């Protein structure tokens, strides 16, 4: 891909971007949020049309007007924003548009066949999902795996992974890497986008760095270090943040949960959270962490169990009850649960705190809303032309930052962050870690659900490990290691 340009209203997303891929290599594409990685790849698969530039495929210049053409050429992609049809089953999603017909009545679809083939695909990924369940019933992680399975099913010659591991935990990531290695050995070219730079050491052959829609450099991974990549990405050095301060043993317990149970999703959930503490939640995808968080926040009903806030028993029936008890929840699925895509950045950020922006008669103080949002845009380095941009036009990572900003502004005492760094670049991740430190310094308490073990280990004071809807262990940060966590996380697995 040479000299690719692409503009959106108010932004030039790509300026003479360049990218090349060889047969049988894993080529990583990295850059900050909004650098233009997804846009470049979407042009390659025909999801967007380029403004100008050339795409050369197997030595010939090609035109890729729509995804079908890309498919036929043997290029497929796992999109960053999940792109599944929630009302269809897993198998139906994977084989959409290429359904085999029944042999006896050739106008009828052969669902048994696609279920069988899906089963094979899923087995290859060691994914325990039935081919005939509706996608809307799967957690984000599993949906991500289904997308990967779908991309593999095309038997393409080029496969693009746009942050495939953002919603995956270690185990699934490892699974994915095995698959990628196998594909590579078959001569398939892989483009791999990720903000988890450590992964690159394990999987990437070459790395291309983009910044501000422009090509920066390409080099072999063996010639590079993570630090070097980062400095190319951001143009400066970044140091690693660690959790600061230890929690006081005697600090007040701000949240206590006893014997929470909800259907078959989770049971016997008991834990407590102290003032100034970061409590990490680890587990494999589908362990039930998100479900527990949603239940505490009142987003889903519970069957039984008690919740105490600052020692007082509370009944939380819906999210605003939770917010009134100064509990906030940042969802892992920003697209479904976090963002109002048609609203601008400013409106998204102030929504939960609307009351602080009201004047008489319910008028919104837009000036104040604007200046406050601008503060957060600066603080979190949200890349947007202005706070009046609709969030659906932001890059994935920047959307995530908007959701973070929204809850920071609400200023609750108990913050439940579900995968807060999902899809966020290294620089910004560090900003978020710093932020977490600042928050606990202010006396707030944090529950951090994350599938990135290094992050959990680095930031938490204590770590709750879940497996199959139950808590299998609560570890102290000092004694916790990746191995220990994984042991507890797979306790009930066979």
């Amino acid at each position: 891909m040479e000299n690719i340009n692409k503009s959106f209203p108010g932004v030039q997303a790509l300026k003479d971007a360049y990218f090349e891929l060889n047969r049988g290599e894993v080529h990583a594409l990295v850059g900050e949020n909004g650098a233009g990685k997804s846009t470049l790849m979407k042009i390659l698969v025909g999801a967007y049309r380029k403004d100008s530039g050339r795409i050369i495929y197997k030595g010939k210049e090609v035109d890729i007007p729509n995804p079908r053409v890309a498919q036929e050429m043997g290029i497929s992609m796992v999109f960053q924003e999940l792109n599944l049809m929630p009302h269809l089953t897993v198998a139906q999603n994977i084989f959409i548009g290429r359904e085999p017909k029944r042999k006896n009545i050739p106008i009828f679809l052969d669902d048994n066949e696609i279920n069988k083939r899906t089963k094979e695909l899923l087995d290859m990924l060691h994914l325990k999902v039935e081919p005939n369940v509706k996608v809307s019933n799967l957690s984000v992680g599993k949906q991500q795996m289904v997308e990967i399975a779908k991309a593999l099913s095309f038997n393409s010659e080029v496969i693009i992974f746009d942050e495939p591991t953002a919603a995956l935990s270690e185990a699934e990531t490892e699974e994915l890497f095995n698959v990628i290695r196998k594909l590579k050995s078959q001569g398939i070219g892989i483009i791999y986008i990720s903000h988890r730079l450590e992964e690159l050491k394990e999987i990437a052959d070459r790395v291309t760095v983009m910044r501000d829609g422009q090509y920066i450099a390409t080099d072999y991974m063996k010639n590079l270090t993570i630090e070097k990549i980062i400095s190319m990405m951001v143009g400066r050095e970044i140091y690693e943040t660690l959790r600061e301060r230890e929690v006081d043993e005697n600090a007040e317990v701000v949240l206590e949960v006893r014997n929470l149970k909800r259907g078959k999703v989770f049971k016997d959930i008991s834990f407590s959270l102290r003032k100034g503490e970061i409590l990490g939640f680890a587990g494999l995808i589908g362990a039930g962490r998100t479900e527990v968080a949603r239940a505490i926040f009142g987003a889903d009903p519970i069957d039984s169990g008690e919740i105490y806030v600052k020692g007082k028993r509370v009944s939380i029936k819906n999210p605003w009850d939770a917010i009134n008890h100064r509990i906030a929840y940042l969802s892992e699925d920003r697209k479904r649960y976090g963002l109002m895509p048609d609203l601008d950045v400013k409106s998204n950020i102030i929504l939960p705190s609307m009351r602080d922006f009201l004047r008489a008669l319910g008028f919104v103080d837009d000036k104040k809303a604007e200046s406050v949002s601008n503060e957060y845009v600066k603080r979190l380095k949200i890349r947007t032309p202005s706070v009046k941009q609709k969030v659906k036009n932001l890059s994935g990572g920047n959307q995530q930052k908007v959701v973070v900003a929204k809850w920071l502004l609400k200023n609750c005492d108990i913050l439940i962050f579900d995968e807060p760094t999902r899809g966020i670049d290294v620089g910004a991740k560090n900003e978020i870690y710093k932020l977490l430190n600042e928050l606990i310094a202010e006396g707030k308490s944090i529950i951090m659900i994350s599938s990135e073990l290094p992050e959990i280990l680095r930031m938490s004071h204590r770590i709750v490990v879940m497996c199959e809807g139950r808590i299998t262990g609560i570890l102290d940060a000092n004694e916790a290691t990746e191995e220990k966590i994984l042991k507890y996380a797979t306790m009930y697995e066979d």
Partner: protein
Amino acid sequence: MAEKLSALFSKSGLRQILMFASLFLLFAFFSLASPNFLTYENVIAILLATCVNGLLALGVTFVIITGGIDLSIGTVMTISSVMSGVFITFWKLPVFVGVLGGILTGVLAGFINGTVISKMKLPPFIATLGMMMIAKGLALVVSGCKPIYFNDAPIFNKIAMGSILGSIFPGLGEFPNAILWFILFIIIAHIILTRTALGRYTFAIGSNEEAARLSGLNVDKWKTIIYALCGMFVGIAGVIMASRLNSAQPALGQGYELDAIAAVVIGGTSLRGGEGSIIGTVIGALIMSTLTNGLRILSVPQEWQIVVSGIIIIGAVYLDIIRRSREV
């Protein structure tokens, strides 16, 4: 066979049966309330009264599952019946050709709707609102604002009102063919929706159009086909209507779209797209015609009939919602 039977009693089978609950309650109630309700003739009358609305509803079910809407079905039905009249009565073409012409008129209108929606990117509401008006006006223009009668082609009336079944099984008495056609097209619609690629894509587009496009579906093409398919059902409804009235009535039709869409939504299909079933639509249509018929048989004053229908439609859908929320 045994497998199918057991499936019937499985969870999803039970779900289908429970869908009948509101309809069953209505039937039970009216039967108790009036001895004139549950007679063979009256049940036939209810079924016959369901045919036209039911056929429209079948067609628009597809469109609604894609997340679209078709407001033109009422008046496109009208112009379809008028065109049949033009072919058969004015131009003296064979009945068979006239019927086909009527149906193709519907297909053509649907095709235009689909094209305007997918190529010109107009919201379905506006595109089909425009078509509603165009079809309404043209029906008046073409017919000269007068009904067209089919008296010269007596066979035409038999399409809907003959009684093939009655002539085979005399015990059945009058069993109008219209009902048979309706049943036939229910089966066809059900098969298309559940078994074919077209049906699959209908759901896919409604569930997430962008994802469907990114999966390589030619969404524009399929949408056009789906609107044309809807037009086909509408055209059939036009022919059945004309045959039943033995005339093409050019002023009728507006407002019928609302009844048909209501039947679809009562039957559990979501206007947001992605979900829906033919069986639900049929039940929805039956609920509506049973209600109207029953209240008439009870001689409820007409203004109260309207009030009560409103309440019962809300109640019936509420029942369905409770049922669905229970079944986890």
